[in-house]
Every structure is written in C-alpha cells, then in structure tokens.
C-alpha cells in the first residue's frame, strides 16, 4: 500500500507500509529465484503452514507505533494489519508465499460471465467469537455481503474506508453505495446460506487479491458502522480474540478456544507491546525478555547483530516487494531541465546506488527497474542504465547543460531518508546538478508530491498493495494519476504506455500478461521518470524460543503460524 517513507524510526505511525505480496492469481506460480531469503521452517501451503504445532505459551512482540484501528474497513498500517489478521478472516489467503488459497471459502471460486462473476462456497461451521471467548453464532453468506457493503458505506464512522472506491469500486452497484445513493451494492449477492456471488463491472485479474486483504474481512452483519464501537468489542472468526487493550501500551490476544480449524491456534496468548523504541526492542530480544519486534533492525546495532555468529540462526530477513526511487517532474513548468528526456536520462547514470546500499548497511537490493524481485513481472535482465558519472556529465553537456543546473530535492524526515538524500545530493553535485534538500514530515511531503509541480525532484518508496504489476503501473505511472491528489509524483504520462497497460490489464493469458508488463516497464524506463535505487530488505531478530516465524511476502508479519519451541 502505497507510499511510504523508506523506513521508519521516530515516526512509524503513518506509514502504512503496505506489506508485501506475491503471485497475482492462482494461475500465476512464478517464484523468482531471487525470492525471499530463507528462514527456518519454510513450508508450502496448506491453509496454514504445517510445521507448527500447538504449544501454548505467550509470545510477545514489540512495535514502535500503536494499533490504529481494530476495524478492518479502516486499518491501513503496519501494526493494525497483523492485529486484524489474528481476529478476522477473509474468503481467501496466501500460502507462505504468494499463492492464493481459500480460507473462509470452501475452495477457490468458480469464475463465469467472461471473468466478471465470482461465486464462492463458504466453509460451514465457522463461528464468530466474542472477545470473552463465547460463541456468537455461525457465519453465513449474509455476513460476507454485509461486510463488503460496510466497507463501501460513505457514512462509516469516523470516516469512510480509504479503499472503498479504489479496491471495491468495480463491484456492480458499489459506486451507488459510495455515493450514498444505495445501502447495498446490487453486485453482492447471497445465493444461499453458504454461497455468495460477486458481479464486477469489468473483468479484473486482481480482484481475488483484493478479497485476501484485511479490508475484505468478514464481520458479523450486525457489526456497528463505527470503528470506535468495533474497537471496544471486535468480533471475528480468527484464531485469537482481543482479550485486553490499553491504548499506547499493550494489546493482549488470547487463543480462540472455539476456533473452527482443528489444531489451532498454536499459542495461549500473543502480546503486542506498543510504543517501544526499536533500540529498546532489540535490547529486550537479546536479553530474552521479548520474542519479536515489528520494526526492522535499527541502523546503529545493525552491523553488530548481523555479523555476530550467535544470532545467525535467529536473524530473519526478506526482500520487500518495494521500490525506492528518485523521481523527476517530467512536466517541469517553463520548459525546465527535468522536462527534457535527455537530461533525465543523463541523471539515470549519475546515482551511485551501491553507495546508498552501503549506507543502509546492505538492507536492500539494487534496483535498476520498476518491479521488485517478488512481484510477478520482475525482469532480472532489466538494467537500462549503469552508474557512470562521466557519461552523465557528457550527456548533460550534450543536452545543453554543460554547467548543470539547480533544483530542489524533497523527502520526508524519517531515517534513513534524510541520509540517502544527502548522498543523492553529492552524486548529483558531482555531475553539476546542485540541489537543495528539503525534508518534511511525511503527511506534508505526501501532499506535496501529489500536488503537480510542487516537487521537481523527490525521494520516496512504494510497497505493493497486492502482488500484481498493475499495482505499480496504474497508480504510479499512468496518465489518470498524473493529477492533483494522484500518486504519480513525476506526472509521467505517455499515451502509448497507457494503451499498453490497458491491454495488459485485459489480457487473460498469464504468461502473455507478464510479458506485456515487462515491455511496459522497459518503455517507462526509456522515458526516465524515476531513478529506481533499491528494493528494501527487512532484517529482524527473534528470541531463542520462537518457532516457525518467517516474514511473509504479502503480510510481512503473519503471526497465526508462529509457535514456541517445545520446552521453552
């Protein structure tokens, strides 16, 4: 999901670090060789990884920021999602990789009507459970329909869901609900108690991914349309219930004794300790007082921990489905230098990406193109530009800027972004381009780069919302989003690329589709709206007791599968 500061420290709260993803539909099975770094106990795909066994005990995990929402229609941040994944469930889920599997659905849906109708059979005997552990009742099709309508409700309190239109607007009748003209979308249908049908306006290969996001969680149909009320008594079908929550301090999740899947949950209790600084968290993990931390290793202790052999088997790492990039205003007003293709291409050669990877202690993979390694459509052979400052200088001179030019480079205040832009500044100065650095709080910065021409250059990152290349092209690099409020910060608009993207979206053959996206990627890189720099790599340390923890490519932290080592 989206925009993020390229890491966090003091601020974490806002950043909806979108948590990762994988293959686009069940048909796509590519897992690139550069996939997730291994972690203990990797397993494939039954409904829940099978290596774990119920061991009981209490697991603790520390987070820098607090859980913002217990309402899945609203939560859109790094802490809310892992919490929601414990309480609520969706029709579909991913395996330990990026393959879609049924969860509340009884098998994958049948697709009809040219890809526009999805029919789901629901699992029977799934129980909604109150926070005190008592059973509310069994789930049925009404609940599924009501839950999606709830996300579409424009009068949801305190405000409408951020993804109502973006994710669910393709359902027939959804637009009317969002506009307040109807209570329920006509395309959401209960066929019988255990059968639900979704009718879409247009065939969309990514729709099943959306049904696996926490936004599509199934709540009881009587759930209040008010996030604050839901937070006081969250009711779901998940393996854990919210036993206690003290804002700013701790959320305690207890095992759901009436869980519908046998053998789960694995633990008695999971404690989210929030508001814990990452330096404090790492200290506590080293001391055995804490099991997991929700934030990556802090820069200062990074080398010490990653090079210490005693931690080698407790270090978990994974390359995020993310790209961090330097962008240029491709429509810079007054015929500005960045509006010129030759200038932007010259700057593609100016950035010493290896140095930036060194500055972040190797917490990243060098990015030369748009798509990150775990994203379908990733092209390991895509390297259109290589670092060559002499060449950049020459090209700038040829473009009419032998003495370079001056500009302003914006980013947010969250480490390591201020450091990275200082390195970029020195690289650009080396080819004659003098930039002033302006760092702003993330909210302000986001507003700036989504307002046309307010940032000639900027440093920012993008995490996928769901594992599909369209999630990088459509929101970031299409003409439709090169507008006020759009995420297309470079205002990149190439009608030909737009046409290619429209074709790729409608392509039903997965192999052809991915090839089409690779062609799009090459075409965009030739126009040089971005200098892709790195794909972030996440490093974290776990305690000696933790069993079967791995960073999930879509969810990053999916704690349902974690257990404790016997005897610990």
């Amino acid at each position, binding site marked *: 999901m989206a925009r993020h500061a390229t890491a966090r420290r003091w*601020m974490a*709260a806002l950043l909806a670090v979108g948590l990762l993803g994988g293959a686009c539909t069940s048909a796509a099975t590519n897992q690139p060789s550069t996939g997730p770094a291994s972690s203990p106990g990797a397993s494939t795909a039954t409904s829940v990884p099978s290596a774990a066994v119920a061991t009981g005990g209490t697991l603790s995990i520390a987070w820098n920021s607090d859980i*913002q929402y217990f309402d899945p229609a609203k939560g859109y941040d790094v802490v809310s999602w892992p919490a929601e994944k414990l309480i609520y469930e969706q029709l579909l889920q991913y395996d330990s990789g990026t393959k879609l599997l049924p969860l509340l659905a009884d098998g994958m849906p049948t697709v009809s009507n040219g890809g526009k109708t999805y029919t789901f059979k629901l699992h029977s005997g799934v129980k909604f459970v109150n926070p005190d552990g008592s059973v509310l009742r069994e789930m049925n099709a009404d609940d599924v329909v009501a839950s999606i309508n709830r996300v579409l409700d424009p009068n949801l309190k305190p*405000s409408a869901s951020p993804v109502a239109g973006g994710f669910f607007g393709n359902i027939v009748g959804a637009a009317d609900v969002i506009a307040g003209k109807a209570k329920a979308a006509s395309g959401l249908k209960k066929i019988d108690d255990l059968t639900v049908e979704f009718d879409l306006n247009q065939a969309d290969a990514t729709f099943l991914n959306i049904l696996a996001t926490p936004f599509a969680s199934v709540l009881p149909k009587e759930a209040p349309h008010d996030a604050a009320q839901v*937070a006081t008594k969250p009711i779901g079908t998940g393996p854990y219930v919210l036993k206690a929550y003290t804002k700013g301090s701790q959320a305690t999740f207890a095992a759901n004794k009436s869980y519908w899947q046998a053998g789960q949950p694995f633990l008695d209790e999971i404690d989210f300790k929030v508001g*814990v600084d990452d330096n404090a968290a790492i200290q506590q993990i080293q001391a055995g007082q804490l099991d997991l931390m929700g934030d990556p290793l802090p820069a200062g202790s990074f080398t010490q921990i990653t090079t210490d052999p005693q931690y080698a088997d407790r270090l978990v790492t994974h390359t995020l489905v993310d790209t961090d990039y330097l962008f240029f205003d491709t429509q810079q007003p007054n015929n500005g230098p960045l509006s010129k293709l030759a200038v932007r291409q010259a700057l593609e050669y100016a950035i010493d990406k290896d140095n930036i990877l060194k500055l972040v202690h190797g917490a990243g993979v060098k990015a030369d193109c748009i798509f990150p390694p775990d994203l379908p459509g990733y092209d390991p052979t895509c390297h259109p530009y290589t670092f060559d400052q002499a060449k950049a200088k020459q090209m700038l001179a040829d473009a009419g800027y032998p003495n370079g030019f001056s500009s302003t480079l914006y980013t947010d205040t969250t480490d390591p972004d201020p450091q990275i832009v200082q390195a970029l500044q020195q690289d650009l100065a080396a080819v004659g381009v003098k930039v002033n650095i302006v760092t702003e*709080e993330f909210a302000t910065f*986001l507003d700036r780069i989504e307002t046309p021409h307010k940032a000639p250059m900027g440093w920012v990152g993008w995490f996928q919302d769901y594992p599909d290349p369209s999630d990088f092209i459509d929101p970031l690099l299409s003409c439709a989003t090169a507008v006020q409020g759009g995420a297309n910060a470079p205002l990149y608009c190439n009608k030909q690329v737009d046409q290619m993207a429209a074709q790729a979206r409608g392509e039903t053959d997965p192999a052809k589709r991915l090839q089409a996206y690779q062609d799009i990627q090459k075409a965009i890189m030739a126009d040089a709206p971005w200098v892709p720099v790195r794909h972030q790599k996440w490093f974290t340390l776990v305690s000696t007791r933790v069993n079967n923890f791995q960073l999930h490519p879509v969810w990053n932290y999916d704690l349902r599968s974690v257990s404790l080592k016997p005897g610990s």
Partner: protein
Amino acid sequence: MIGYLLRRLVWAMAVLVAVGGVTFVLVYVLPADPARVIAGPRASADAVAHIRTQLGLDQPLVVQLAAYVERAIHGDFGHSFSQNLDVLPLILQRFPATLQLALAGLFVELAIGLPLGVLAAVRRDSGFDRGSTILSIVLVSAPSFWVGLLLIHYLGFLPHTQFGIDLFPIGGYKALDLRYLILPAVTVGFAGAAYYTRLTRVTMLDELHRDYVRTARAIGLAETRVLWKHAFRNALGPILTQIGLDFGFFLGGVVVVEQIFSWPGIGKLAVESIRTADVPLIMGTVLFGTLCIVVANLAVDIGNAIADPRIRYTR
C-alpha cells in the same frame, strides 16, 4: 482585590483565545490537506472531497474558526484521525503520564535545589558554596536531551548488564511503576535543580541579612530554628512563584524528554500530532499546554496577592 482578580481572569482568557487563534491560523495554512490525510493514500478525489465537506474544511477560515469555537465551548474538540479517538478524552488519557513526570521532575528539582541552596547561603563563600555555584552553571548549560541520552546510555544498561536487573528501563511507561520514572524525572529535573540552588541561595542570603534574623539570633533562638522556621519560610515566596510557573510549564508536556524516553504524555502526543498533520489534535494539545501555563500564572498571581497585600493591583 476582587477587581484585580477579575482582570487577571479576563486576561488569562484573552491569552488562551490569542494562542488558539494563532494556532488555528497556523494549522489552516499547514501544507498537508487534512482531508487527504484522513482519507488515506488510496482514496479517490471524490472521497477526499466528501470528507472535506463533511468536516467543513471547504469553508472560509473565519467560518471554520467560529465552528471550532462553538464546538469547543460545548466541550467538543474534534476527533483525532491519527489516533482514532476524540481529542479531549485522548488528552485526558495522556495527562496522568505527564502529571507523574511533572511531579517527579519538580521533586528532583526541589529535593536537590532547596537543601543545596540553603547550605550554600549558610556557608557562603565556602568551598561548598563556590563548588555548588560552578556546578549549577555547568548543569544549566547541558542540553536536557543530551543528558537524557547519556543517562540512558551509561545508567540504563548498567544494572541490567552488570547485575541482570532492569533497574532503569530505557524508555516506555508503566503506570505506577517508579522504575520507569527515575531517568526521565532526573532528566527533567537536573537543570531546574541547578536553578533552584541559585535562587534559594540568593533569597536566603537576603533574608539572613534582615533585622528579624538578627533579632531572632540575638534573643538566642536555635540557629536551625532561625534558619528554617524564619528565614527559609520568608524566602519561600519567590521560590513558590517559580515552582508554580515551572509546574504549569511541565504540565503542558515535557516535549523533549517525553520524546527521548518514549513517555506517552502530552508533549509526545503534541509532536506526533504535528508530524501526522492531525489538525484537531494539534489544536487540542497546544491549547491544553497554554491552559496549564495560564492557570499556573493565574494561581501564582493570586497566591502572591493573598500573601503580600502590598502588591500593586493597578496592572
């Protein structure tokens, strides 16, 4: 006297209104669009516009300000979208942490400052006096955020690594767990302790030179009695004034120290609100901080007026 108090009260209200007005204008021109922030990164332009209308953000500044004032009078300070709670309960929820830290910081200041100041005055010109003067200048020169960091680094881990006990947790907060309070309180209080040492010393010196002290000594009262019962009690006036002002200031949130120690108080909340462009919360925390200072000033003025009838009531 009543007139004086009334004037002070009206004045306090005026300050509050002025600060509120300035802050409101500031957040109004804040470059981040609150509706956009609330709507989230994926929201469509329509959704943002809907929220803007809902919150009245499309209205002119004056209309928005009037609406805010009207709601505030009824106790409604809006909804914090970054914390997903109403502003007033949120501030009240964070207040105990700040209150604890303020009280503890004040305690550190006074527990060190008062005895040292009195001693320095009594033994004026001694090595002790000179030493405490130098030490207090050094201490007021150290930035509190830096001292906090040093304490964390050199004390925070020491008991833990040496003796395996977590005597000084390096951050965070547990209600009523004093261990979490020690380092932040020392950080808040050390500079103030130096200040109170000097303030106490000078006021005590003044008192000790007054006639009543000479008289008391002449009639043979015990020195400790003269010192504490008479001189110190009379010296308390200016010290109490300062305590009142400090306390009000602390209650508004100890911004830097709360940041360093991840202390979930008003100051940290305020900084978070600015970072997330959470307009209602910025307004709420700034107003609350001002209220604390203004009330403390008022209390000090009233206290002084009652204690010292000679005070000029004209202003």
